[in-house]
């Protein structure tokens, strides 16, 4: 699906990530942890080609990202659902329209029942007509997750998707990701929440990637 080969990245200052080599296999479930500022968000941005590596190669669906045209990248993004850490919406359009946006920009129509089911699952059924600026932080995160999965993407990259929600809701969101994973989707979740990781490990074969000292490595069973 997505593979990194000796990837390094810096924002112009010192090296933030280096010698990153790994493969996100189809159907795998990974957590991404590391101290704040260690580069989790940067890693995810490299994975969906918002950033290009300073050196090394990122391969997206079997193609090196540097060889992709702008339209190629757009088409790749239709197969990747992303939950940003700083969630952004089209603030002038109601929540339901925002959640369906990936479908509308790719010219696909949506089944209203699917939309209602999805919004119900993330607990936003009653807010489908609300405008994004009126939503709470947690509601925005849930809406972002709904938007990320509505296309049934091959890969879901979620950056702190449970950062602002209570434990019960975290479990619901996790359940959604686990179900998608069981359908064969590749999932990466960046999080600080060790309880969430433990909870997930009891449900799926999740692995933990840890960023420390600029390297991304598989963590041991002890986390």
């Amino acid at each position, binding site marked *: 699906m997505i593979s990194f080969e000796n990837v390094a990245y810096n924002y112009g200052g010192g090296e933030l990530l280096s010698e990153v080599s790994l493969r996100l296999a189809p159907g795998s479930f990974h957590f991404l942890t590391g101290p704040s500022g260690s580069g989790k968000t940067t890693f995810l941005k490299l994975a969906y080609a*918002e950033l290009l590596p300073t050196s090394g190669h990122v391969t997206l669906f079997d193609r090196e990202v540097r060889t992709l045209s*702008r*339209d190629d990248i*757009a*088409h*790749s*993004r*239709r197969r990747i659902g*992303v939950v*940003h850490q700083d969630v*952004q*919406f*089209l*603030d*002038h*359009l109601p929540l339901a*329209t925002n959640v369906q*946006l*990936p479908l*509308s*920009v*790719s010219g696909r129509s949506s089944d209203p029942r699917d939309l209602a089911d999805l919004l119900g699952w993330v607990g936003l059924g009653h807010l489908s007509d609300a405008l994004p600026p009126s939503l709470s932080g947690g509601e925005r995160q849930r809406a972002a997750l709904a*938007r990320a999965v509505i296309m049934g993407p091959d890969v879901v990259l979620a950056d702190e998707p449970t950062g602002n929600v209570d434990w019960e809701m975290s479990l619901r969101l996790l359940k959604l990701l686990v179900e998608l994973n069981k359908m064969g989707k590749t999932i990466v979740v960046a999080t600080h929440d060790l309880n969430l990781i433990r909870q997930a490990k009891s449900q799926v074969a999740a692995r933990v990637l840890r960023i420390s000292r600029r390297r991304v490595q598989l963590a041991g069973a002890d986390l």
Partner: protein
Amino acid sequence: MNRLQEAFQQIVSYLTPDRQADRVVPPSGHTAWLTTFTAGAMTFLCVFALALSLASGRLASRWSDALARTATIRLAAPPDQMQAQTDAVLALLATTPGVATARALSDDEQRALLAPWFGPDLPVDALPLPRLIELVEGDPGYDGEGLRQRLAAEAPGAVLDDHTRWRRPLAEAAGRLRLLGWLSILLIGTTMGAMITLAANASLAANAQVIRVLRLVGAVDNYIAGAFVRRFTLRALAGAAAGALAGMICVALLPRADAAGGFLTGLGFTGFGWLLPFLLPPLAGVVAFAATQRAALQKLRELQ
């Protein structure tokens, strides 16, 4: 041909209302008005520039036509020789190739010509007035220099006035005026393109978040650009239609041109000329389309 067809289809698909795609760009107040107003004002001005060009074109050809076809010979001679010289000149003209007809103006006609200055009771016979002989040029025309020389030989008092002296600068001025009109239209069009580019850039910059979100969920550049382009093109079309209509009404309300109408009263459209202003709104739409499309694709590449 194929590429033209493709471009045309792209324009058509861009302009076909796609409510969903249009709504992704928030309706923004001031750039919307700027575009509509600019297109309206520019088209309004364009109507006048067009009227000016057409009118001065008509004027140029009318002046050269009318003045080129007739000429006057002024014959000054002592009263007792007047008739003889007149006959000589007429005889000479009758054998000059290129002169269709020639005739001496009668005393009544000369009196009528002079009446505005001296009143109706002018005793023409008593005054040492030159005799006027009017000649109408044939096709092909006569050789002006040759005629002058023959007149000098046979009727020394005769002077050929073929109007070229003052016809040429007038026709030239009218031609220049027409050129200025076309130049103005070009400038107005370019200015409109530039203003709409500015408005589009402002709108694109104000909607950076919208663009980021759309990119994130997999929208291709053409989809994003299309949402902006459609909006600006439609606004420009609407503004230009209003501007063209207003301009045409103003031109129509100008005082009527009569046969003796001077230049100012001749400013307007005639016949098929009235159809030309209808071309301006689509033209404004094309300008807006090209300007926004270029601005949008450029901005999108910048944003990565």
